[in-house]
């Protein structure tokens, strides 16, 4: 258990360092950085490299946004394996839903609860 926490810390931290490098070194906006990382995750999964990383690092690989690209690709490929080309289209959101659905849900809830009385900085 301890070892998986350490690997989660290191791998998760390193993915964030890559993000910082894109932002500071290549002067990308946060939106560009995140999009680039998602595409990287999708490509890594295409080569079958992301799942081993998840096996290795657990949350260190599932929490960064790269895992979003991975799970989209994973769902698409799993369906494609079963149903051929149509599966590429239909399988996409098979496994990713939790990130997006929770973001939408908590977005609305957040807008509802936090009607700001005072702006703090």
């Amino acid at each position: 258990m301890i070892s998986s926490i350490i690997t989660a810390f290191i791998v998760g931290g390193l993915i964030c360092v890559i993000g910082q490098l894109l932002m500071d070194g290549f002067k990308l906006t946060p939106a560009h950085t995140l999009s680039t990382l998602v595409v990287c995750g999708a490509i890594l999964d295409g080569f079958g490299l992301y799942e081993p990383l998840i096996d290795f690092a657990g949350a260190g690989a599932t929490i960064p946004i790269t895992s979003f690209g991975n799970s989209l690709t994973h769902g698409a490929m799993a369906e494609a394996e079963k149903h051929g080309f149509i599966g590429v289209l239909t399988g996409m959101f098979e496994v990713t839903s939790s990130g997006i659905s929770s973001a939408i849900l908590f977005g609305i809830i957040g807008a509802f609860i936090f009607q700001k009385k005072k702006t703090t900085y």
Partner: protein
Amino acid sequence: MVNTTGTLQFMGKPSIVSTGVIVGPMEKQSPFADSFDEILPLENEPNETYEQANTRYIEKACSVAVKKGHEKLENVDVFIGGDLINQLSPTNFAARQLSIPLLGVFSACASSMESIILGCLLLESGNAKSILAGASSHHPAVERQFRYPLEYGAQKPKTAQWTVTAAGFALLQKQAKSAPIISHATIGRVVDGKQTNPLHMGAAMAPAARDTIERHLTNTNSKMADYDIIMTGDLGKIGLSILKEMFQDEDSGVILQDAGAQFYGEDSFFNAGASGAGCSAAAFFSHIYGQLKKGVFSRVLLVATGALLSPLTFQQGETIPCIAHAIECRMEKRG
């Protein structure tokens, strides 16, 4: 009388009778805080949108300025104002409440000086007797329009500036007693330094400020040392040092100052300093105006700088064109 390339000379002694500066809670720590008329504890009241709050700040600043000038709102002939929100809605909505004939102006953060220049011209023409002119900006409202949502976590670089929440308005009348007069003004040219970083406005605006200051100095046959202070609007700490480098004038070190760089003191939370139309308006109409009235300064050049970008043009890959308007204020020695 029209002088060369955009410099105007006012013969009728238009003067700043009184000013009203209303700021938000963040501006409490400003070194100018003592000279602000009122520091509101909230940026927006509960159940009030940021835009409505901006409107309220403008209304309040106007009524304070009029009150201090012993004038009545209904006797003001023209209201000239600007802000940073789309379609100038806060200024327009404030004018709805004030019911004074309105001229809305926009030159980003240089709006404050543009409205003063227009006001002086109206006074010169003899078609108006008293004029309210100024500008405002509201941090949350501006932030959401130009950058990211307020609560969005984006790392701000050292060059970033903080839009102030402030409304600064001045009551202009001709030949008022013991009030600073506006002797000259220089209308800015749109200068493009080919800068593209919207989080580094100081670098983009410095060439415009330099162009305006240089034209003003040549057209009025003066040099930097003739002024007590030449204050730019919101170049920020880095923008100011760029401007000083560009002049390479030995006087520029002391005389050239920047309201944005000083507005929040040395607090690193604000990175390079303050920006926004309210920044130049608040600093000029409170601190500088007070110093002029007290007679500490007798001749100052106020240069408000504005970056004429919108989120749209930035995303379309355009560079940031900038403008700077300047007014020269003099305080005649008593007696």
